[in-house]
């Protein structure tokens, strides 16, 4: 890359940043003037000025795209109607009806896809929580080289998911992948697993990958929560003769629940919407490895069904919204945050 290209790129970024700063400067000035001259409430001007960048950012990055998506779901937009889509309530109902009644992509309809997504989410969250908690308990005990173990265990979380996904895909290669090389050496050629071409094994492969990627997050959360549990509880329980199991289920889990419950909720949302792993591990586009968001991606960007995909995205949003509400009510997940 030549110096000129670098200089040009930097100057472009610099101009963009300067324009953004100037725009914000104007906004801040306007807010200041409005509070002082119009509302005559100069003491509140600072609050408004400090909040303005965040409010504008959220509006531009979240509210507008959401409104745009909602508007698109009321359209028949696809490549045939790309520049001149029609909008109307009938298109919205058509799109929603299509989500539930027709094949989403090629063979699979919405309900089997939803089942696959729920199964994927349940497996993932269970493994993340159980393994994450186990590792956190070990790291919270008195062991040597604790910091070293922590560093190594957090590594998968630190790696970019796309890189991890592609690396894992290589390890599932039937001839040159790590797993099959080991299996062949141990049990002979017949033991090799068709990770990429068999629907079941491909689903297993994407689960293994995402468990590896997701456990560190839960481990860090659990470890943080465990460190906040006073040791007196354990000492008192030990004096009363409580075993390890009793201490875990009667003291540890109830005490870390305020931290664990919101994390599990986040885990459900992230896993339900996890795109990278199911997309990259499913090299042959097997529908048995698709989940709702990968199907949504293919509908939108492979088949260019923008109106339909927007309606589909709304359906996914409301499913997740429903799951989150039920989960919060059952576990009081955000109670601690509210308190």
């Amino acid at each position: 890359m030549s110096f000129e290209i670098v200089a040009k790129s930097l100057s472009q970024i610099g101009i963009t940043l300067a324009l953004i700063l100037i725009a914000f400067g104007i906004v801040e000035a306007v807010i200041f003037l409005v509070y002082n001259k119009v509302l005559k409430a100069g003491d509140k001007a600072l609050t408004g000025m400090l909040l303005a960048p965040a409010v504008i950012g959220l509006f531009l990055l979240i509210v507008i795209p959401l409104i745009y998506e909602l508007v698109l779901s009321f359209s028949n937009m696809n490549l045939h109607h790309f520049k001149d889509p029609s909008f109307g309530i009938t298109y919205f109902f058509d799109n929603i009806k299509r989500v539930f009644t027709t094949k989403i992509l090629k063979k699979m309809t919405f309900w089997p896809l939803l089942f696959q997504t729920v199964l994927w989410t349940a497996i993932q969250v269970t493994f993340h929580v159980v393994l994450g908690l186990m590792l956190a308990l070990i790291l919270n005990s008195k062991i040597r080289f604790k910091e070293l173990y922590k560093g190594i265990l957090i590594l998968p979380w630190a790696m970019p998911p796309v890189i991890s996904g592609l690396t894992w895909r290589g390890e599932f290669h039937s001839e040159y992948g790590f797993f099959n090389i080991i299996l062949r050496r141990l049990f002979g050629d017949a033991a090799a697993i068709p990770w990429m071409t068999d629907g079941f094994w491909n689903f297993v492969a994407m689960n293994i990958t995402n468990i590896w990627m997701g456990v560190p997050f839960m481990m860090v959360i659990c470890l943080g929560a465990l460190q906040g549990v006073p040791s007196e509880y354990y000492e008192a329980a030990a004096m009363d003769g409580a075993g390890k199991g009793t201490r875990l289920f009667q003291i540890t889990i109830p005490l870390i629940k305020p931290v664990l419950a919101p994390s599990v909720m986040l885990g459900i949302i992230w896993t339900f919407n996890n795109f990278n792993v199911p997309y990259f591990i499913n090299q042959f586009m097997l529908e048995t490895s698709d989940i709702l968001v990968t199907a949504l991606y293919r509908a939108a960007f492979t088949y260019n069904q923008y109106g339909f995909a927007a309606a589909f995205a709304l359906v996914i949003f409301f499913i997740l919204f429903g799951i989150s509400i039920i989960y919060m009510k059952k576990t009081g997940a955000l109670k601690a945050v509210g308190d």
Partner: protein
Amino acid sequence: MKKAILFILTVLMSFQFLSANSNTEAASDGNVSIEMWTKEGDADGTLQWTMALIEQFMAENPTITVEVVKKTTVDELREDFQTASLAGETPDLLWTVSDHAGPFLTADLIQSVDGLVDLSKFVETVTTAEGSWAVPMSSGNHLMLIYNKDLIQTPPTTTDELIAMGTELTTDDMYGLVYNQTEPFWFVPWLGGFNGKVFAADGVTPTLNTKEMVNALQFVSDLKNKYAIVPQECDYNAADTLFKEGKAAMIINGDWSLGDYEKLFGDKLGVTRIPMVSATKKWPAPYTAGIYLMVPKDIDAAKAKAAAKLIEFFTSKDVQYSQVNDFNRLPGLKAAYDAPKIKESSILKGSSYQLEVGTPMPTVLEMRAVWDGIKPELAQVLAGNISPADAAELMQESAVAGIAAQQ
């Protein structure tokens, strides 16, 4: 505070003034700035070559500034261009693959190039009843049989010979033949060899559940499962690496790989047609396409004129020769077929020999559904999970559903 506000307003007005002033200058002195998006990458040196061409063009045309934006993949280029078109922020020239013409034409995103260049000077391009939509930069993009002369002296000319040679050459650490088994693009030549086509005569109705498809699927399955002359699983990178490391005698790969292989193997590289299917006495028909230059719709006249000038430069004889010499790509300009290298190089002779029996890749939107219909079922056949007959039915069902979804 008043001073601060005054300062901000002054800076803003200065920017406004400078911006307006520069625009006025651009209009009055004839300076034009255009943006080109390319799919070329730096791994094989084609991006560097493109950038050098741009520098040369700008030196020869000081009133035109060209900014090149490199897109990592062709799919990224397609998706970004569609999104940019919606926002009204399109580039002024696209350097991309021919199959993008289908979606771009359907969405009415590119303009006819009939008035920009004399298309009679070029090889076949994307043409509809309304006009022609792209200028061919290069021709081919086709698959062929590439072999290592250290391992085989005479390449097979029929599939029977291929199987016999492959069986002889395949050992514990060597394969007779490798190719990308994951992409239907590598399967299509065999379908042609068995007299099959993916579309009916109307060019949009899929014909994947045919006897020809079943035979072609059976053949590729046999190469792997019966004769075992190809690896059990092989994607593009695995095939490429095996061939480069001398662990495969033959590879089916495209013209884009020739430059790399020539550097590695030199005189030991052989190129010829994919062997004739013994059962049908027909040559496999790889899809042919190429790299095309497309002009987005709704760009202003001055930019369109500058883009046309750039197209003229890219398709000049010198640049087309350079493409042949440096990258073994066959030219889009007919006149450049007299390039000495095409006549002298055994590699390009082999590539042209294969091109003769190729078939133009359909550029219709429906092709996407066909690719996606074939891909998973082909994998299942190769894995031995389903029969070719069942796979053909599922492919058809899937392609029909995919096409219906696009409407």
